[in-house]
């Protein structure tokens, strides 16, 4: 399938992850941004993805317990 006869929003969806990862080629990036400029529907979904990434990082962040930290320090090999 060529890009020309593909639904532009479906094509934009395909480019979302690589766009946000900054791994598109310059030409692809320009193409994605051209579509995003005129398509509110896709733009919302890109913004959602960005928020989601930040949100997930925060949600899964569980600090290490102090007791584990102590156990790790105790694993050090004593100098003799």
């Amino acid at each position, binding site marked *: 399938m060529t890009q020309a006869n593909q639904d532009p929003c479906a094509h934009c969806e395909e480019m979302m992850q690589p766009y946000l990862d900054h791994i598109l080629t310059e030409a692809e990036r320009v193409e994605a941004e051209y579509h995003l400029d005129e398509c509110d529907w896709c733009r919302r*979904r890109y913004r959602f993805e960005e928020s989601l990434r930040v949100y997930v990082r925060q949600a899964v962040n569980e600090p290490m317990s102090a007791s*584990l930290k102590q156990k790790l320090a105790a694993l050090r*090999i004593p100098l003799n």
Partner: protein
Amino acid sequence: MSGATVAEMAEAPPDATRIAAEARDRVRFEEEALALSDQVFRVARHLAGSREEAEDLVQETYARAFRSWRSYQPGTNLRAWLLRILTNLNIDRGRRKQRAPQTTPLEANDYYLYDKLAESDGAATDEERVVERLSQDDIVTALAAVPHDFRDVIVLVDLGDFSYQDAASILDIPIGTVMSRLHRGRRILKRELADSVLEDVS
């Protein structure tokens, strides 16, 4: 410093000097490794299935790292080196247990989750608000439900900030595989999140 005179130190057998230098290197290694433990745990927590497993895994990793510190090359990425030990231990123990054939994971398109969330909300479709409909529990559970191969890559790259190259060498897979698993894994994660939200509603 008392005791040894300059002359005595100069005469110290080369062995003693070498041992002292090695002890210094080892102490430095241990301190650098321990300083990274918060970051190592943060990643380990989601490579492992539970908090308890993650704690065991991190302890085993540090025990092994302290024993085999000589194989670490100073100046290279110590966090990646520790994570390589950790993922190997995790694969050894965890995956032997779950021998059940992995069913092909269901992934949805990239827009799927947003569509589900916006659809079940109706009025508020502001992107930042929509994301808040996911609870912390939803996210932790959904991530744990992503099959190992995909989850490892998401956790290393998206949560641990490892480069594709580092993730590839930690997991001992080609960089192209890292990229394709990351891409699919995020879709699987979103599918899991969408499912958890639909369950909450019903």
